[in-house]
């Protein structure tokens, strides 16, 4: 019989200074898993390390190793840290709580940014690393596979992962609704400040044909253009650049609009009325609102983009209940499946053991009753079998039921295992259990 444990910390329980000390890089994780395997050869382990959390999932025999304290020591020893520096930030989970926690993590319900889908890939990577190290066995293997599936299910069946959470990504999303490809498009940035940098970073990922940075300070424009493989252009020739541009990001500090309706109107003809996406993220605005009234001109200011971000946040918050319901139902289903898997062999052993006892007693009794005919012998044999079945029926029924919330009726199974000697005698002495609250 196996036990599931989790030890970890995350953005809610530990500050960045603590998280970064306990974080594992890819190579460190491999090293740590191998060290874990060497120290606890009979246990399974998955190490999940992201920028927001470090979690060690362990599957082991009920009386096996490691215990929680040993897991804390393992993390401290690997990072050469004093355990007291992070012990207060740790959380511990056992059995069904672990399943629920992992499913919530994979569904991004426990993430800093609700609905971020990156976590599914990170859970998958952690599981793959454990598998490669030979540390994912018959307990963590189904658990993590299910967790990844639950994460995907939540993303597809709810809107928790829909929408964009930054002004820059919303701008790119809108650009994608206007233009199909960007290899033949020109992105023009008017201004070279922080906001322009943020938005250009997203647009540079689209690999546009040309990326122009137009700023009064040409040196600043050159610096920003170099960063994204673009070209700095003179502010005096802004009209020419507007004719060439398909996407314009404007974020200057000008107190008056740079692009007025009167200025843009003659440029439309020179542009041959091509569609243009204007993103005005300046305050006060750089582009006159009237420019957006022209055909094939799509003008968005910071309020328009911010509104989408706010709506995304609201939608994501509203879909939390639906996501939690999916997680809860999956936890129950997994617990039921796990209970069946744990109980099956145990119950078989129990029945076999008691039928064996009954059989030997029956043989002894039948030896003392040589005059019984075949029918009478069969009746006595049936009697013995029925008594065993009746005696075991109630305890087995209770075991199967569990308590409805845990993966299996673990204390009951453990007691059954020990009382009837269903497993090999445990090597762990009574002292091993002392102080381990995870039992």
């Amino acid at each position, binding site marked *: 019989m196996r036990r599931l444990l989790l030890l970890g910390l995350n953005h809610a329980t530990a500050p960045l200074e603590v998280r970064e000390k306990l974080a594992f890089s890819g190579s460190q994780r491999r090293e740590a898993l191998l060290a874990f395997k060497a120290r606890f050869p009979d246990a399974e382990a998955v190490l999940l390390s992201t920028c927001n959390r470090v979690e060690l999932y362990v599957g082991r025999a009920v009386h096996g190793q490691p215990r929680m304290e040993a897991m804390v020591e393992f993390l401290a020893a690997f990072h050469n840290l004093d355990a007291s520096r992070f012990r207060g930030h740790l959380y511990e989970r056992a059995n069904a709580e672990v399943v629920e926690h992992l499913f919530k993590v994979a569904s991004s319900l426990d993430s800093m940014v609700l609905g971020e889908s990156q976590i599914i890939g990170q859970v998958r990577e952690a599981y793959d690393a454990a598998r490669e190290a030979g540390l994912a066995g018959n307990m963590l293997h189904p658990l993590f596979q299910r967790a990844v599936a639950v994460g995907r299910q939540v993303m597809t069946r709810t*809107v928790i992962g*829909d929408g964009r959470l930054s002004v820059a990504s919303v701008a790119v*999303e809108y650009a994608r*609704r206007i233009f199909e490809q960007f290899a033949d498009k020109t992105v023009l940035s008017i201004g070279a400040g922080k906001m322009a940098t943020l938005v250009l970073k997203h647009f540079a990922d689209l690999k546009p044909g040309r990326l122009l940075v137009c700023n009064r300070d040409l040196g600043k424009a050159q610096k920003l253009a170099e960063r994204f493989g673009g070209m700095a252009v003179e502010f005096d020739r802004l009209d020419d650049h507007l004719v060439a541009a398909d996407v314009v990001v404007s974020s200057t500090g000008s107190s008056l609009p740079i692009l007025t309706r009167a200025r843009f109107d003659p440029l439309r003809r020179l542009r*041959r009325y091509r*569609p243009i996406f204007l993103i005005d993220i300046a305050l006060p605005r750089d582009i006159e609102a009237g420019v957006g009234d022209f055909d094939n001109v799509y003008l968005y200011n910071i309020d328009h983009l911010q509104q989408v971000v706010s*709506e995304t946040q609201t939608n994501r918050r509203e879909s939390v209940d639906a996501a939690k319901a999916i997680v809860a139902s999956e936890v129950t289903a997994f617990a039921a499946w796990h209970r069946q898997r744990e109980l099956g062999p145990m119950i078989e052993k129990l029945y076999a053991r008691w039928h064996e006892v009954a059989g030997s007693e029956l043989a002894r009794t039948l030896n003392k009753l040589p005059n019984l005919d075949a029918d009478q012998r069969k009746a006595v044999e049936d009697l013995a079998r029925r008594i065993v079945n009746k005696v075991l029926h109630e305890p087995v029924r209770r075991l199967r039921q569990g308590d409805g919330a845990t993966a299996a009726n673990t204390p009951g199974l453990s007691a059954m295992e020990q009382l009837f000697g269903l497993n090999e005698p445990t090597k762990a002495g009574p002292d091993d259990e002392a102080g381990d609250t995870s039992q």
Partner: protein
Amino acid sequence: MPTNGQIGLLLAAVALFTLGGAFSLARALRDRPGLRAPSRWCAIAGVGCAIAVLVWHSIHRGSWVPLEDNFDALTFLAVMLALFVMYVQRVRPLAGLDWFVWPTVILLLIGAAVFGRVRPHVYTENAWSVVHRASSYGGAVAFAVAAAVGSMYLIASRRLRNRTTHPGPNMGSLERLEGLMLHSVTLGFALLTIGLVTGVVRMFREGAVAANWTLGPKIWLTVAIWLVYALVLHAPMTSGFRGRKAAMLSIVGFALMVGTVVVVQFMPRSVR
């Protein structure tokens, strides 16, 4: 003349397309991705039924040219349109394309059931007629697609201009929609031009050129369609007719084409 069985099968195709469209709409509006498969299977079954009708009808009348009467010409048009949508959805899905094309497909099938039953007649007299009808019907399919995509363009453009925060169904980028619309119009325009030329040739050959033939509404409507689509085709070159205006023109062109079909169906041959 189609049999009752053929009409029944045609109506089954109508029901399947209607059901498929409803599933597709419900999938988008109620956010139920699970309805994608039923929607697709309904469309496949609908196409299957319509093709079965064509085959049955062809066997029944002993000819395999699907342009000889209203019944199989309209059914053939519907099948071509449906196959086009299924092809696009398989190669590079465009959410919502079926919502805009299925109504036309359904109307064509209903038209086949009604006009095919009421006015059976044989069209194909010679090779010019076959080319004339094949190119005209092919052009009609292309214009129907252009009109559907034009409608999608107008909706997508309006959503962008209104800065709708809810993303809604992904109808594809305006650039893709405009490209698809222009491609359809290019193909339709070429076929319509062939149809026009062969139609004129046919009229001369058949000696149908009467003193007032140029004033017939069918001819005027066809020329108007030709001019509208010529304008749409020149949209990338002519400054004022890009984007929304081109989309609106493609819809107007399709409406004129439907008008031509109605004229052909209901007016006496002498007036046409």
